[in-house]
């Protein structure tokens, strides 16, 4: 545990003091500002009912934060390999899965900071609707599940790929694939296979649960079935990332 703490602390310093953490969060804050201003001012978007505006902002917040975490996670090992710094990292007196878990914790910290940044926007949009509490709690819970899944996926891909470009490309492709069911026409979302697909995909299922809770005001326990897929896949992906991380090897990467 001490080793994990030491590795995570080093990775957190790298991300937030010298790395891309704060610039990414700045871009995230600007995006949320534009989204919330448009939701509140634009006539076409203002067609949305106020709870829908809260739901939309939460979904954008979770979705973009998941993207940021995926970018950082996908760069974690393949980036070190490409920059020629993986060798010194592997000399750290700690099991390799601990190195990967430390990088994962640092990447997940991006989600926690993004969540804190999104709170003022959600607070403003949810005023007077009575959904602020449930929006914040559900946003944190569902967002953590989705982000844990994508972070683990990014770390696993980053470990097994030789180049950073491939790791990022594959991760983006899988992210798009995970968001694809959310874009299915409503008519295509009914039926046995479509229902299974929607429930298995952690991004779609998680965002659907959020929407039911915040927009339609359904009780928190009524749609818990939608969280089974995200929970199972998040845990499975984290376990798979640690397993793959334990076999991390020093392979020559292509220098940029």
């Amino acid at each position, binding site marked *: 545990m001490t080793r994990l703490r030491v590795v995570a602390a080093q990775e957190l310093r790298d991300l937030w003091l010298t790395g891309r953490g704060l610039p990414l969060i700045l871009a995230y804050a600007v995006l949320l*500002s534009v989204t919330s201003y448009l939701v*509140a001012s634009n006539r076409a978007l203002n067609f*949305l009912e106020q709870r829908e505006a809260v739901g939309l902002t939460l979904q954008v917040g979770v979705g973009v934060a998941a993207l940021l975490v995926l970018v950082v996670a996908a760069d974690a090992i393949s980036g070190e390999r490409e920059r020629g710094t993986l060798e010194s990292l592997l000399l750290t007196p700690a099991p390799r899965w601990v190195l990967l878990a430390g990088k994962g914790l640092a990447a997940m910290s991006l989600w926690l900071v993004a969540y804190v940044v999104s709170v003022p926007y959600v607070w403003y949009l949810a005023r007077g609707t009575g959904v602020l509490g449930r929006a914040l709690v559900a946003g944190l819970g569902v967002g953590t599940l989705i982000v844990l899944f994508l972070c683990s996926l990014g770390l696993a891909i980053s470990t097994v790929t030789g180049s950073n470009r491939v790791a990022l490309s594959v991760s983006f492709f899988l992210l798009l694939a995970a968001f694809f069911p959310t874009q299915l026409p409503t008519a295509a979302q009914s039926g046995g296979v479509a229902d299974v697909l929607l429930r298995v995909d952690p991004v779609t299922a998680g965002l659907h649960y959020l929407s039911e809770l915040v927009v339609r005001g359904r009780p928190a326990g009524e749609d818990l079935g939608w969280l089974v897929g995200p929970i199972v896949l998040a845990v499975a992906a984290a376990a798979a990332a640690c397993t793959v991380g334990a076999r991390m090897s020093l392979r020559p990467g292509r220098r940029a």
Partner: protein
Amino acid sequence: MSRPARAVLAGLAVTVVTVAPARAETPGALQPVEISQDTTTTRADIGAQFTFTTTVRNAGDQPLSGLVAHLNIVSLHADVTVDPEDWSTHRTQYLAAVPPHASTRLSWSVHAVNDGRFVVYVAVTTAAADTLTAGPALHAVVSPQRHLDAGGVLPVAVAVPAVVLVLLIAVRRRRRRMI
């Protein structure tokens, strides 16, 4: 009329119709169907969902199969156009066979898209029927939407990125000093 009285009347709101059984070989063979509804009035804010339940009862002596129930929305104001697709994504329900003197319940979820006064109703028919029959009218009053104050969100939209930017500059300066 008071609300409880309306609710009682809503419970009693029953329309007796005749629909041809799907398996009837002659088009003239008709059987009575009764459609009732749990409410006939509702109020909603624009953007909100409301639900209601329709009960379709086979009042005849033969089983009824092939019944199709369809939801429709009518605006009572000439200047308000209704696109029913926006109001409900599942407007058609195909019923399982209804035994003689038995009934089946159908739940409908409706999204209040426009403000104004509307009538929502369910019609039932079969492939072999010459007519279709509508159930009781549900009078829906949808109140206008509350607009968000764009000016109010501006301080939040400016302050949050500004705080992050200040933090970023402070961290960068501290790092330069340390180097």
